[in-house]
């Protein structure tokens, strides 16, 4: 079990009183599994991803990622978990603008202290980035940037990959290409993938999907297999 979340609750204070974004969400993700998390804007899916990625802490409930209970971790512990066990892909790509594509791709692996040049080269090849590795992010197209981000997330061989609207900033064609590549590589590395998206197209590619609505999983407890199968 890569991810096990039980009764996760998150509330934000607002001017009109506390706003419950997540109200008791439970889910699991197995090794090699791809899980798409869909929902409307404001349904809480990004919040859930942030909690699972140890970027934020839940108010109640238990989350276990790669065998570690998040509630027991310090800030540094959560950082270590992100560094070593999780690969993150953002909608905004979030590349480091002052580093070239190659350095960005290898970045997390270096940060985690397990840089493997061969693996990075392989990733770059598979992602079609070999010719643009010395370019800086601002010189890359959106699709290229997101492929660099995917490479970065995979370079450290994480146990679980979490992607937040990875194709949200891409046109349809590049979106498809990027999604295909991502799923292909995840399958090859045997990592688990948690995919947050509002795109049906993309969600349909996942092995399993959950729908979040108003902070709760629709049909909680059902483990419906994806339509793609």
């Amino acid at each position, binding site marked *: 079990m890569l991810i096990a979340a039980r009764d996760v609750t998150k509330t934000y204070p607002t001017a009109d009183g506390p706003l419950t974004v997540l109200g008791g969400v439970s889910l699991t993700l197995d090794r090699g599994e791809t899980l798409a998390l869909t929902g409307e804007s404001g349904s809480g899916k990004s919040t859930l991803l*942030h909690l699972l*990625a140890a*970027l*934020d802490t839940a108010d109640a409930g238990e989350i276990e990622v790669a065998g570690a209970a998040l509630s027991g971790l310090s*800030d*540094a512990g959560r*950082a*270590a*978990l*992100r*560094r*070593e066990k*999780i690969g*993150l892909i*953002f909608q*905004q790509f*979030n*590349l*480091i*603008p*002052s*580093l070239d594509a190659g*350095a960005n791709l290898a*970045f*997390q692996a*270096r*940060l*985690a*202290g397990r840089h493997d040049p061969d693996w990075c080269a392989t990733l770059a090849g598979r992602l079609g980035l070999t010719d643009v590795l010395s370019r*800086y992010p601002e010189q890359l197209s959106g699709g290229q940037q997101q492929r660099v981000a995917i490479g*970065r997330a995979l370079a450290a061989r994480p146990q679980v990959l979490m992607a937040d609207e990875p194709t949200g900033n891409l046109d349809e064609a590049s979106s498809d290409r990027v999604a295909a590549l991502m799923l292909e590589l995840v399958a090859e590395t045997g990592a688990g993938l948690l995919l947050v998206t509002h795109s049906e197209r993309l969600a349909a590619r996942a092995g399993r999907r959950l729908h979040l609505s108003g902070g709760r999983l629709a049909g909680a407890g059902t483990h419906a297999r994806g339509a793609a199968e």
Partner: protein
Amino acid sequence: MTRTALAALLSHWRRRPGQLATLLMGLALATALWSAVQAINAEARASYDRAAGELGLSGLDALVRPGEPLAVVDFVALRRAGWLVSPVLEGRVAVGAGPPVSVLGVDFLSAPPGALPAGLAGLGEGEEPALLFTAPGVAFAAPALAERLRQAAPAGWPEIRADAAVPPGQVLTDIGAAERMLARPGEIDRLLILPDQPRARPPLAEVAPGLVREAGREQGEIARLTSSFHLNLTAFGLLSFAVGLFIVHGAIGLAVEQRRGTVRTLRALGLPTARLVALLLAEVVVLALVAGAAGVALGYVIAAALLPDVAATLRGLYGASVPGVLSFDPGWAAAGLAMALAGALVAAGQGLWRVARLPVLEAARPRAWATVSGRALRRQAGAGAVLLVAGIAAPLVAGGLGAGFALLAGLLLGAALTLPLALSAALALGAARARRPLTQWFWADTRQQLPGLSLALMALMLALAANIGVSTMVGSFRLTFTGWLDQRLAADLYARAGSGAEAEAIRGFAEARGAGLLPTAEVEARLDGAPGTIRGITDHPLYARSWPLLSSAPEVWTRVARGEAALVNEQLARRAGLAPGDPVGLGPGWALPIAGIYSDYGNPRGEAMVALPALQARFPQAVARDFGLVAPAGTGADALRAALVAETPLTEGAVIDQAHVKQISLAVFERTFAVTGALNVLTLAVAGVAMLTALLTLATMRLPQLAPVWALGLTRARLGRLDMARSSLLAALTFAAALPLGLAVAWALLAVVNVEAFGWRLPMHLFPRDWAVLLALSVAAALLAALVPARRLARTPPAAFLKVFADER
């Protein structure tokens, strides 16, 4: 992990070398000016300490014979009686075409160590003592003079050695050589009474009747007198440092802003916050050390360049002797580095704090750099207003120089903090009056840029205000001083008699020629408890006609001539709180009512004037040696001078005409403020750099704002021109704000700081032409600063503008 993260953070600078250069330059400049001032102050203080510690010539009591030189027999008689005294022979002598050289002869064997050239300590090896003590002898002079004398010294002069510790214009040598150089064999001017006398000695009156003991200058007096000058310099140094810190703060803040995304990504990818902050801190430290080292080096260069002027100032104004050569002190360098580090940390503090608290999840939405909300602007202006009020209140509730500087600091900082709000209001006013859409956009866009430029504009205003304030002060002083010189130097010639015979010769000459004669004598005394000078004068209508009195009682000159009253200078009156009618203590058991107060610029010490006979009744040693001569009608000063030199034993050097004295006084004056002027220019230069860097920084962030305007049909060149116009407008507005501030600063300097520091108050004059020049300069600087980004904008490829729309989120 650390290395990878650090490499990522530092890669920012590689991509933006200009920003790095800005940061380093700002910090280096700030450190340089600060360190330079510190080095100068330290050098001066060290030389005061040296002088105080070694009891140089001026610190020792001395024996003199009123009106006559002493002879070697006097020295020998005192020595044989057990009085440890050391002879001094002084005089001026003409050498070649240059100004006359003052020769100071001491007995190298018995003189107090503080009076000896430092070079003498190095005589150990290979030097024959015979060189020092026998003809032709050895003399020491500052390097420049030594060089001149080597070319032009008369035959029979001692061998000249360069010694940077000897005050410029002076030759220090053994008395045996000095009496030949001055053609005064066997004569002695003063016998210094050395410290550490033997147990029992016969009384002075028994050994050497007719000699008078003159008190030495009090130890520490120089340090006391000059402390205000050094405080002045320090204040300037701090101002420069503050201006520099504005740049650093801007550059570091920008760097932090621009790296928000990177920072967030690093956090998301698993870099712990503590490590991240530590890395950024280390980065600041390294940058500060690099910039600090450069700044210290630059500061040394600046200090070395300014020191001769400072030394001249201190000598001219206070008679303090400071070598014109800078020594290097590692402690000073370390302090400079520490200052750079502290400054950088202060400047970076806000940015680091923000990073530490930056939520990792905050949406990566781009923020305009240092966007300041209206509320923040008002809050800042409120703080500024508090500072203004506190500054103005300082001299009202507390006295002293500290309060004066508190006033200046309150004015400058308070005004700087209120500047953004004032500019914003002015721009809003402009926008409200604008009718055409482009004009409206121009005003609005300018206002939108204000937050990004406000730091630079604040720095500019500080520099401008300081410049206006200081130059108004110096200009006012110069005007007052020249007018005062004209009044005070009313006689045509000034002659100094070396002996009673010479004095008689001058009297005889004046009588025979029908020239007016104004003899004066001076004695050192305690005036109202503090050391000062009493000047004895003889009655002459010229005094009533020209002497610059600030306030007086009725019949002032008559009463003074009768010995019934005294005049005191402004310094003494202010220090002791005296007004006409009050009694002033002139020594033990002697006090006279004050008949008037005269201005006495350039003299840091208290002084009183009384009738010569009254002075001589109290101080028998007060023999008139200085004479002012007024040429009779029909005789020119030059002719009178020639006749005086021809018909009396006086040498050329002993007679100076009025024009020459004025020229010397004004030269001293100019040098006095040369340092202030130099620091002024440097501060302005730093502000210019601040402006440039701020504009350069903004330019890179302005594309999103300019792209829509461009899309709506404005050419890039036009946009560039508009940007330049915008910079000029902001500079002009800033100048408009700086002008009243500068005048307030000038007033504070003239009416508060100068009074506290020097003891005189000067009327304020205005110099509108200087302002015009300064306005032109600041607009030109702004244009120049805007030129680079404007040209870059004009050349920005349309694709870049398009990208703005593509990236629009």
